[in-house]
């Protein structure tokens, strides 16, 4: 408890504690748990040609008999049909590559901003945040104009004489990588920047006093200390990219098979809400379970260290 609450009587302290803990839990319950339960319920239903297009989970049959129907076929189909596994693996792969690219590009940028002069820093941060003022969809559309075979990039390269025929970049996996890295780079830079500005410069001075060269000091001091920023940034990029739909749909080609797109097909083209919900549940499990395990591991390691 903080100093300000030390003088409060015990009852009030308990109340404020309850409110402090209760509000976020209420929020989580309302906006995460409740929707999750609804999706879970649909995922064990069966499709029906009705409004809404799935069967009810329970039904009152005569004489107070409650009939509950749980259909696990959707999960079995996801397990049995290898196209879903392929889509999951491909999505994870794309997310992994993009997270690494964002990290490689974003780290130097965040470092440069964090070490820039105070006045320049605001300007640089502004430049990172500014694209958010335009709709995400419009920005992805703009890439179509850039990557097209008649687009800006190809015209420029042709003009320079580097290539003699336009490169086919749009509608390939490369275009998806470009689009994703462009769109998610700020989510990597901002947490890294927040982390790097908080690092104590005295540590680097100490390293230098002890005869450590700048490059070595970076790898020995700055990089390990920025690990929380790296993890936060990577999670902010990795998690949404796994389920990304808009970018592969607009920039990707026929073979960029991703879970988000598959989910869209099941929901819209097939009107199969239960299977779409089951896919969403599996996606959540695929994302949440490793992160929970990782956090456990981290905690254990921290405890062991201290």
């Amino acid at each position, binding site marked *: 408890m903080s100093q300000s609450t030390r003088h409060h009587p015990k009852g009030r302290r308990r109340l404020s504690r309850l409110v402090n803990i209760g509000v976020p839990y209420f929020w989580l319950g309302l906006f995460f748990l409740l929707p999750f339960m609804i999706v879970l319920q649909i995922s064990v239903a069966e*499709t029906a*040609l*009705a*409004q*809404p*297009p799935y069967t009810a989970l329970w039904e009152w049959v005569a004489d107070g008999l409650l009939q509950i129907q749980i259909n696990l076929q959707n999960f079995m189909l996801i397990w049995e*049909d290898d*196209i879903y596994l*392929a889509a999951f693996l491909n999505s994870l792969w794309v997310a992994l590559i993009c997270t690494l690219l964002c990290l490689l590009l974003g780290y130097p940028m965040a470092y440069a901003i964090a070490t820039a002069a105070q006045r320049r820093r605001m300007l640089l941060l502004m430049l990172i945040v500014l694209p958010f003022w335009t709709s995400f969809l419009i920005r992805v559309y703009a890439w179509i104009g850039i990557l*097209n*075979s*008649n687009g800006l990039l190809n015209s420029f390269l042709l003009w320079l004489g580097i290539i003699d025929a336009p490169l*086919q970049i749009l*509608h390939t996996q490369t275009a998806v990588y470009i689009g994703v890295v462009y769109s998610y780079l700020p989510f990597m830079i901002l947490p890294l920047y927040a982390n790097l500005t908080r690092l104590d410069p005295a540590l680097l001075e100490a390293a230098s006093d002890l005869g450590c060269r700048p490059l070595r000091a970076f790898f020995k001091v700055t990089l390990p200390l920025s690990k929380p920023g790296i993890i936060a940034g990577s999670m902010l990029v990795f998690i949404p990219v796994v389920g990304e739909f808009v970018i592969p749909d607009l920039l990707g*080609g*026929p*073979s960029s*098979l991703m879970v988000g797109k*598959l989910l869209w*097909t099941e*929901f*819209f*083209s*097939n*009107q*199969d809400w239960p299977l779409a919900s089951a896919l969403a549940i599996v996606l959540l499990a695929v994302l949440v379970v490793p992160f929970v395990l990782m956090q456990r591991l981290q905690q254990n390691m921290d405890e062991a260290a201290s």
Partner: protein
Amino acid sequence: MTKPFSALRFLAPLLMLGIASASAAEQQVHIYNWSDYFAEDTLPNFQERTGIRPVLDVYDSNEVLEAKLLAGSSGYDLIFPTARPFAARHIKAGLYQPLDKSKLPGLDKLDPEIMASLASSDPGNQYLVPYMWGTSGLGLNVDKVKAALGDDTKIDTWGLIFDPEKAAKLEGCGISLLDDPTEVFSAALAYLGKDPNSLAKADLDAASALIAGIHSHIRYFHSSQYITDLANGDICVAQGYSGDVLQAQERAKEANKGVAVTYRIPREGAALWTDVIAIPKDAPNPEAAHAFIAYLLDPRVIADVSDYVFYANPNTAATPMIDAALRNDPEIYPPPELRAKLFVPSERSDREIRTLNRLWTRLKANR
């Protein structure tokens, strides 16, 4: 059919309507239609004539419309789905209310052939009024196709896409297919000389093998991207909807960059589709919805829409009022011998649609 996402063209009338919304007690009719599917003055004239304020929302795929309808309480009075398989399925799910035909004079002017064809999924034409119809054929950049295949090549054939030799030569200038299993499979089956509506395993396997064989030559599968790309000369062969290809033609002319776009109905056969008007069961204002349908049945009104969207309409009284260039275009108003080659997509069960869609996902990903 699927329409391009061109925000400005549908925002302008919306803004105008917003300004006109000053008086409070007026009636409203909420319309959910494809983007770019009315003429520019269709809605303002309706308000002038009836005093009812039309409020327009737009979509660009039947699937989006269907998802809203199935979720319930969409709030729309009028919708414009494609007859098959969508409207047919919605009738079965009980999503529509029957039309009050006493409020719809002018129904008798509609093409009896099209009404008869609709009656097979809407017995007695109780729920649906046809709005526009068209075909799914080929959008071509003939100059580039001839440059790749020679001057005497036939251009009104699915072979441009499904013949691996031709497709390999056209790959460089760009081929696109619709992202729609029904359309692509029926085109492939027509090319193979089989029943385009067949769901027999042997036929589907043959069509799958055909599509897999040309997969590497296809630039993308998309249902509206091709409009812009044809107009800009980025692709040279597109499987596409008649009116959309003509829109591309118009845009190419406006841009004046030496790109000429042509629409052709392949002589092996092509799908004929009809977009219909229907009133959802939970429509807030069915009265006004009927008034709007009656307005669209006015030959002058619907002729103006056709002139703007480049699709044929089923109103026989409107045909003489349509721009001669459109009315006399055999690819838009096909003469009887060509019309005989068109086929109507047959109805399918949910299971069949899902099987086809999953087969499609697999094919697209080339697995």
